[in-house]
């Protein structure tokens, strides 16, 4: 079926369009001007160099969070714990950034690596429980999110600061921030993390599509029993898939810790990046290239939204509604596929 490829491409595109459409109905019904709203959004995302810089900066953690969710999806797992793994990765990267004095060539990679390891360890627990106790990873990862939130807050208060609300700034040698990137984007907060994120996407593509291990991981995701009979170690593969997914999530946290903020603060709630990562992965069709595009879409939506209250008087939350609707439509792809097949039959 050559048309299935087309359908796979059309489903996310239609979901986005439907989401935007219903979003404009919401604006109309509540007395706002949708055209003004969406133009403000577009301007706020791509209007000038500063906004473009901010959009790319926001896209960076989205790419990695999306990769984390997608990697798990491709291997038959649902990692809702990206949020928690991201927080732990953020914490680890800042910790290494503050605690060591090293030359940049060692310090920066070490801090990113620490984030990856921390995220991976956090994801190891649900992976291990899934593999050995058959406990569903969704519930465990949700619980791990809250544990991550509270534990990281406690560590920030008692270890990284003296009962304060944020850590010290990381040392310059661990920072991803770049004077050059800031200066060409009218001093936005753009940093080198985007390069790390794109490399992450390439790694995921290579790992899943071009290596034997990646084939095994996908096979286990498709059919555990068949993989088992083919001589694959199902348990070890489940744990490995979760650990790699967690490593991507941890690096997403490092982007915030080493790039955007340069420190970590006590959080009242979640960053939301991990949950948005689910949407990014779904719209990106769980493949590395698709995720680059969908992360850009979500980065633009989030950053552009900030312009909506001032120039169109529309609350920023409209964008959250649109994102939720997009997730609904992608999740209900059965509906879209049904409509598409009807449409095709009538065309003949």
């Amino acid at each position: 079926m050559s048309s299935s490829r087309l359908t796979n491409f059309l489903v996310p595109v239609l979901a986005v369009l439907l989401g935007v459409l219903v979003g404009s109905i919401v604006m109309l019904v509540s007395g706002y001007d949708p055209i003004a709203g969406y133009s403000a959004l577009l301007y706020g995302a791509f209007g000038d160099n500063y906004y473009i810089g901010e959009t790319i900066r926001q896209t960076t953690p989205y790419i990695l969070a999306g990769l984390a969710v997608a990697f798990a999806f491709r291997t038959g797992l649902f990692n809702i714990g990206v949020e928690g793994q991201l927080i732990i990765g953020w914490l680890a990267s800042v910790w290494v950034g503050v605690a060591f004095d090293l030359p940049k060539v060692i310090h920066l990679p070490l801090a990113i690596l620490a984030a990856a390891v921390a995220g991976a360890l956090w994801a190891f627990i649900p992976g291990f429980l899934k593999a050995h106790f058959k406990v569903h990873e969704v519930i465990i990862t949700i619980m791990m999110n809250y544990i991550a939130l509270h534990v990281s807050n406690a560590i920030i208060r008692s270890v990284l600061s003296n009962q304060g609300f944020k850590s010290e700034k990381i040392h310059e040698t661990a920072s991803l921030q770049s004077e050059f990137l800031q200066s060409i984007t009218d001093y936005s907060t753009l940093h080198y993390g985007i390069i790390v994120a794109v490399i992450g996407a390439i790694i995921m593509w290579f790992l899943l599509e071009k290596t034997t291990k990646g084939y095994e991981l996908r096979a286990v995701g498709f059919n555990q029993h068949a993989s088992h009979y083919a001589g694959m170690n199902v348990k070890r593969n489940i744990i490995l898939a979760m650990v790699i997914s967690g490593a991507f999530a941890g690096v997403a946290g490092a982007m915030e810790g080493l790039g955007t903020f340069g420190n970590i603060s006590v959080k009242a709630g979640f960053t939301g990046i991990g949950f948005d990562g689910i949407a990014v992965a779904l719209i990106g069709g769980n493949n590395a290239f698709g995720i680059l595009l969908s992360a850009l879409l979500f980065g633009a939506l989030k950053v552009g939204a900030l312009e909506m209250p001032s120039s169109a008087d529309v609350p920023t939350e409209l964008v959250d509604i649109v994102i939720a609707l997009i997730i609904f439509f992608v999740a209900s792809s059965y509906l879209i596929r049904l409509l598409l097949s009807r449409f095709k039959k009538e065309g003949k």
Partner: protein
Amino acid sequence: MGVYEVLQIIIPSAIFFAAPLIFTALGGVFSERSGVVNIGLEGLMVIGAFVSVVFNLTFADRFGELTPWLALIVAMVVGAIFSLLHAVASITFRADQVVSGVAINFLALGLSLFLVKKMYGKGQTDQIQVGFDKIDVPVLSHIPVIGPLFFSNTYIPSYIAIIFAFVAWYVIYKTPFGLRLRAVGEHPMAADTMGINVTKMRYIAVMISGALGGIGGAVYATIISRDFSHATISGHGFMALAAMIFGKWHPIGAMGAALFFGLAQSLSIVGQSIPFLKNVPTVYLLIAPYVLTILALAGFIGRAEAPKALGTPYIKGKR
């Protein structure tokens, strides 16, 4: 401070914090017993909290003392209607139930904050003026020792929550409706063969969970936060989900777990004023519900078995 005084602080406040969790967790039991995963409990609580606060602020003058009760009912109805989205997506359109639940959470928070800004021009509502009154239960509060601990100085919705857990148990285990509900969640095809309408049962179950989640959110907003903002419901729905699992998908178990989590929550807040808890870092109390749930699921605290057909859409005629 003696043990009795300590208990006098802890127990009423545990019951106080547990009430919203009990309602919401019972909602989760209904939905998941029918085979539909409901991660959207958090969002349903958000909607309930939002609706009840707005209703309370708008109609407090007209209805006076009745306002919070009417607000509960309105929150219940709106919660049930809102949960239809989850039902339509996950039952009719066969969406991944977890993804649909995530969307519910996003949509609930986005929509309610959008409306708060639209209606009040700011990100947070005012404090409500009319709440529930604290009562002493007649007769029971005069029992020595137990009376002051369990039946004094508490809110009526807390007792309704506990009574409702027994009602839910009766409905799920002792009525034909409950039998059908469980059958649909364990083996939908067998249930279908026996003439039970699987789709209808699951729709009803999801809407009950919406109604109860709405009540849970409304109780939280009316008793504990007394206003509505982005941080009003932060993780309580997921804690209710945890209570449901810790209680092994059983109404009474879920209630027990919710009471226990309420205790942990209250200790993390009032713990500072209790001598022997002063030195325990609050983080242990904050993460206790989640850690215990993980241990329960891993089988360290008795095995928790989910309904067999949980999470799988039922497609007629498919084997």
